[in-house]
């Protein structure tokens, strides 16, 4: 089996689900697949999906790594609010753009490291550890914006959310670029492999000399960093920081994207690409329901229905059932093979 076919096999269920969902939507809403160029910028529902998916896709990249370590990061929605608030405050105070971006990213990393300390050093269950920042984070964001929606007028920063470069909206560059960089970082170095080992069996990995704490720290820090980028896109998009609603429940979308992408919540083997396709599936459903002319009330319930179907199909019970059928067939084959070999 070549590398390519193995990849394809891993991604097949997600790609198929995405294709089916896009197909259904295009049947209901005929203009769905068309892409047009206006004023040198691409327009169309598909482009819209890619742009709207940016925040969730970014969160999904970090969440995939955290989940691979057998953790979970509930705080990233709140981190979006915090980083958005920081960025908006600095912009209104007249700081230059590089400073704004650097400080916001730094704040995101600090948030991630805080989670990392709780999880890796104090050994607190990830779901509980990140709950703290999830609860307190929005309060902190409101503290920064002093309880108002902090608007600003800075076209350069706003371009992060609504601008375009060579016809392609900037948010797409940001999430695809981040995903590529982090994906390469994981697979071109041994980071991904070591994170998987830690997620599957932290104790065994530690005894083999893997520095599990460092890996946990880096996963949560990357998660915070991704949330910071997402926070800047969200803030730039609406030209304001809304501490109450920015990134609200996006962590749950990101977790769903990872789960739909087939990475187990029990940690271990992960695929950032599959998670991103999961994020695109979720965004396609959102956009699809809108363009299909369903009343927006249906949005959540259709999404919930699809998610429940996907979860059921991927549930351990069903997988074990299929897995055993497959395994028993394979072991039959193998037994034949070894018998022949010994003959």
């Amino acid at each position, binding site marked *: 089996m070549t590398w390519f076919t193995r990849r394809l096999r891993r991604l097949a269920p997600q790609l198929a689900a995405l294709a089916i969902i896009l197909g259904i939507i295009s049947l209901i809403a005929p203009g769905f697949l068309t892409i047009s160029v206006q004023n040198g910028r691409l327009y169309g529902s598909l482009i819209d999906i890619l742009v709207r998916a940016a925040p969730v896709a970014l969160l999904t990249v970090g969440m995939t790594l955290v989940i691979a370590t057998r953790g979970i990061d509930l705080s990233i929605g709140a981190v979006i609010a915090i980083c958005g608030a920081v960025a908006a405050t600095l912009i209104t105070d007249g700081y230059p753009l590089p400073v704004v971006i650097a400080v916001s990213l730094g704040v995101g990393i600090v948030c991630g490291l805080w989670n990392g300390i709780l999880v890796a050093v104090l050994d607190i269950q990830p779901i509980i550890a990140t709950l703290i920042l999830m609860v307190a984070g929005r309060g902190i964001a409101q503290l920064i914006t002093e309880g108002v929606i902090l608007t600003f007028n800075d076209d350069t920063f706003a371009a992060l959310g609504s601008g375009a470069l060579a016809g392609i909206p900037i948010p797409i560059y940001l999430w695809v670029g981040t995903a590529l960089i982090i994906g390469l970082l994981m697979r071109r*170095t*041994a980071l991904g492999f070591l994170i998987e080992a830690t997620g599957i069996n932290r104790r065994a990995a530690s*005894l*083999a000399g*893997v520095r599990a704490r460092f*890996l946990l720290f880096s996963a949560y820090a990357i998660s915070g960093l991704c949330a910071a980028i997402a926070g800047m896109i969200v803030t730039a998009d609406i030209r304001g920081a809304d501490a109450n609603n920015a990134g609200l429940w996006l962590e749950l979308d990101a977790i769903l994207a990872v789960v739909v992408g087939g990475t187990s919540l029990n940690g*271990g083997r992960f695929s950032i690409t599959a998670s991103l396709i999961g994020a695109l599936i979720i965004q396609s459903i959102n956009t699809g329901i809108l363009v299909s002319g369903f009343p927006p009330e249906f949005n959540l319930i259709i999404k919930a229905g699809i998610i429940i179907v996907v979860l059921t199909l991927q549930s351990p019970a069903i997988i074990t059932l299929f897995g055993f059928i497959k*395994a028993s067939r394979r072991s039959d084959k193998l037994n034949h093979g070894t018998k022949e070999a010994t003959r």
Partner: protein
Amino acid sequence: MSAPHALLEARGIGKSFFGISALEDVDFTLEQGEIHALLGENGAGKSTLIKILTGVYRRDRGTIYLEGNEVSPDDVAAAQALGIGTVYQEVNLLENLTVAENLFLGRQPRRFGMIDRHTMRDRSKALLARYGLDIDVDALLSSYSVAIRQIIAIARAVDLSGKVLVLDEPTASLDANEVKGLFTVLRQLREEGVGIVIITHFLDQVYEIANRVTVLRNGRLVGSRAISELPRLDLISMMLGRELQHITRDHQAEPETIDDRGAPSIQFQNYGKKGSVAPFDLDIRPGEVVGIAGLLGSGRSETAFLLFGIDRADSGTATIDGEQVNITSPEAAIVNRFGFCPEERKTDGIVGDLSVADNIVLALQARRGWMRPISSSAKRELADSFIKSLDIRPADRERPIKFLSGGNQQKAILARWLVTEPRLLILDEPTRGIDIGAHAEILKMIERLCSEGMSLIVISSELEELTAVAHRVIVLSDRRHVAELSGRQLTTDGIIRAIAGTGETEAA
């Protein structure tokens, strides 16, 4: 004494998992008031049979009779109601509940639909008093030792079921005194007419307490005999199905003691940790196998933890080739080219979902750091060469390691360390839970490695194994290194005498 019907009788039991047969046409008979040992190597089908009798698994074929009546326990609760109670080795009672709550879980005495705590406490007290246990039943179970928990579990099972008591490896984590206490309880229950099935791998204990043994091998019944007419050698050959091969290093041809095997390359001086192991000196020479012997809890695994930096020493120094080193973590130990195969292979050794190849390169990758990845072609080559040289089966480097048998997993863990080319390899119970074939291969491997100049520390509770492979054996007792045996003194009897503290070789 023969009752019209046996207490528990199973006929023609068969069970397969997804096409692979685990148990085939097995008969088993338990009489009232007997202790019946169920023996066999790992994978013989002991636990499958037990799980069928106690309602955890459903059988595919066969019939079960309890006191002559056909029964079909579908789940644990049904088996308990019929009178068949079980005490498992590890997953036992609930640590977060009190003793009384554990004893009466699911059958709490009630008044007006509410749990009657007073009655529950009194009845718990009375129940445990029968076993000579007078403890605070309102304290959490977690505040008591494993031995006491074991008795509580037995008390619960007997009170709950009363006819048949199944014990799965009850003595595995008990010391000698605790085993004695447990056996007193079992004898008392036997007097009262309870039928007891006991799974154990300690043959001494079988001869001490059992009336009958039933031996399984590869899912089939080998035989069932009264212990009084079964010499030990016959029993072993029933279990193994072949004569034991003696590959014993011939210490008798050696001088009385051997002190001089060249200069030590690794030295630990006054090395120890409070509450774990008393300070000890240990010199290891290249190409030497140092055995560590002692009872469970004597500090033998703790010694390994200390040497490998899992626990931090609070006294003493470590020197390698004359240079002092600090071994404060596994990473530091690995940097100094140490390797460690832990006793608990499943929890501390393998990374189950990763492939055999990934497991083999894990320690090397960890030592290189995340920035210097091992290329996939190098990984393939390494994995394939070790799969070949250690004969890991199936020879499929991409297969998740959790699907391999225990012996092959152990070989893969060995390979994990061999790729790092260690100067010292610590093996904690390297042959536990491994089938007999892999067992011999691993012992041979140890021989080969030390002939190539590697130093090894082998911890084992099987004394024959230790005397067979080790040049020297350190004996531990009460968390102290009490003796060092080598040369002609190195015999199983010598080790036992040293553990018992009666050895004339002490403080040699």
